[in-house]
């Protein structure tokens, strides 16, 4: 599992580390870590609906912040639990641009084992960094 929850840097919130060989994989892992806080049986999620998203930011760190917040937004606005299926990050005019296809379905409490709501991504200990093996992120979610 390319992410791990941590109990040592937050009590009321949920913290995780994610790591991956590429930045794109890191974003996908961080998305799974975030959504699994809300839905325990994430592998059972059906790709019934797809959405295209495009996000622009000045750097990779704020791009991941926006990307995770986008997933949290759809959970409230449209009751959708979504995960990225395809995802690319390319340098843009003034920073970085993410394009992703998100797939998933509406919350169905008869099939989804629901956990705890994620309210937001916090800036506490928040970090996205290049490491010798690839990329690493530390994220604390407000729940």
């Amino acid at each position, binding site marked *: 599992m390319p992410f791990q929850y941590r*109990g040592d840097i937050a009590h009321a919130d*949920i913290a995780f580390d994610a790591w991956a060989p590429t930045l794109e994989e890191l974003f996908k892992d961080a998305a799974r870590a975030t959504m699994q806080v809300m839905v325990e049986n994430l592998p059972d999620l059906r790709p019934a609906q797809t959405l295209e998203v495009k996000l622009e930011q000045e750097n990779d760190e704020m791009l991941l912040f926006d990307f995770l917040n986008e997933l949290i937004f759809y959970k409230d*606005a449209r009751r959708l639990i979504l995960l990225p299926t395809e995802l690319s990050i390319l340098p843009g005019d003034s920073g970085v641009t993410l394009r992703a296809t998100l797939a998933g379905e509406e919350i169905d409490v008869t099939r989804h084992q629901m956990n*705890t709501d994620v309210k937001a991504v916090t800036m506490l200990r928040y970090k996205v960094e290049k490491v010798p093996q690839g990329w690493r992120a530390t994220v604390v979610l407000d729940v």
Partner: protein
Amino acid sequence: MNVPAALKRITDTIWELPVSYKEGMLVPARIIASEKLIKEMDAGVFEQVSNVATLPGIQRYAYCMPDGHWGYGFPIGGVAAMDPGSGVISPGGIGFDINCGMRLVLTNLTAEQVQPKLHQLVDRLFARIPTGVGCHGFVKLKQDDFRSVVQQGSQWCLKNGFATRDDLEMTEEGGCFPGADASHVSEKAVERGYNQLGTLGSGNHYCEIQVVQPQNIMDQELADAFGLTVVPNQVVIMFHCGSRGFGHQVATDYLKLFLSVMQRKYGIKIVDRELACAPFHSPEGQAYFSAMKCAVNMAFANRQVILHRVREVFSELFHASPDELGMRMVYDVAHNTAKLEKHRCNGSQKELLVHRKGSTRAFGPGLPGLPECYRNTGQPVIIGGSMETGSYLLAGMSTGADAWFTTAHGSGRTMSRHEAKKTFRGDKLQREMEQRGIYVRTDSFGGLAEEAGPAYKNIDEVVEATELAGLSKRVARLVPIGNIKG
């Protein structure tokens, strides 16, 4: 034990980190706690409350209440008053769940009358009040109507048949922060929240049926004044929820905005990005203050329409009107806010911007802003404990002036959610609680496990510390018998 060597004991319940503790501290940091609670505080409290003491414009002390624990930016339980002229406003001092708060409602029913219908009552509340991740509410609105809700708060509820005048009177600020302008709120925040009016949410949000047992009344006179002695073993309803996705989005939007302007435009350097802030009187600071008020009003309206539903359910099951069942509000208190209030500071009366994050305003007797009926008692303060252990009703004290008339908000976590989920099983906990006389309904056993009693501090010790520190006086302990949880 995480207590720093520099921590000084001021009294038995007041502890202080001096300005020399950390570079950049402008005022000392004070923690309210008994000796036992201070020894159990997590390291994050000392780190974060001393970070708060570095914020521009902070007055006298940065505070943390006895239920304090590791938060983001401010610790949970954090309090800071800023000089509005020279100081900042920080979303990290308010939290993402803006105006998360507590409401306490009376009935004239006894536990003996409610027990035979308890399962039916809890089941029906669970069916009628949406709970859990991403839940949509029972009040269907267009986005423009939702903008009216966030500008008007409980007043919108009054106009639309969800409230009585007394309800508004018994809500902090009358259920509406004036100056809430929806033009300062993003489309995204509206889109995220307009479907959520009338939802509890999840995590530590709940609606609980409780009993006031005669042996748990600690101050008879105040208990009489707050309506807790109408019948012996009186049943009351307490619930806890906030501004839902709307408030979370407002906080996220402005956290990002403040990060982008704070240093570049205003030259403010901070020790933790979660303390992102802007001068209170800057365009960004004023826009956030107005957007935050919209989220405050959304939370007041949310609790108000939920109260309407609770009244409907009780009426249906007990075949009497809410009035006949004595379903009056004791009070509604806000946890996560910033407000302009007048306080005595350095010898004179000053207007200050008081940030409270996971802490409760606790006005003492005689303070302006309290309903007439509470002028002599002080403000009712509703403290939710863990779902297993019980809650408290307290009253604000006149000795609370130093801490800007503020007290604790709950019992405070001692165990991370991650650890609690590894330690407890939700389904087993639900069965054990039922054997102990507490019937719980939830959509999430994982979420239930995270809220297990041992994951929290001892509520009795927390409220005792607030009383010994002169912040809030114990009126009664409230024992749970039924609970719906997100």
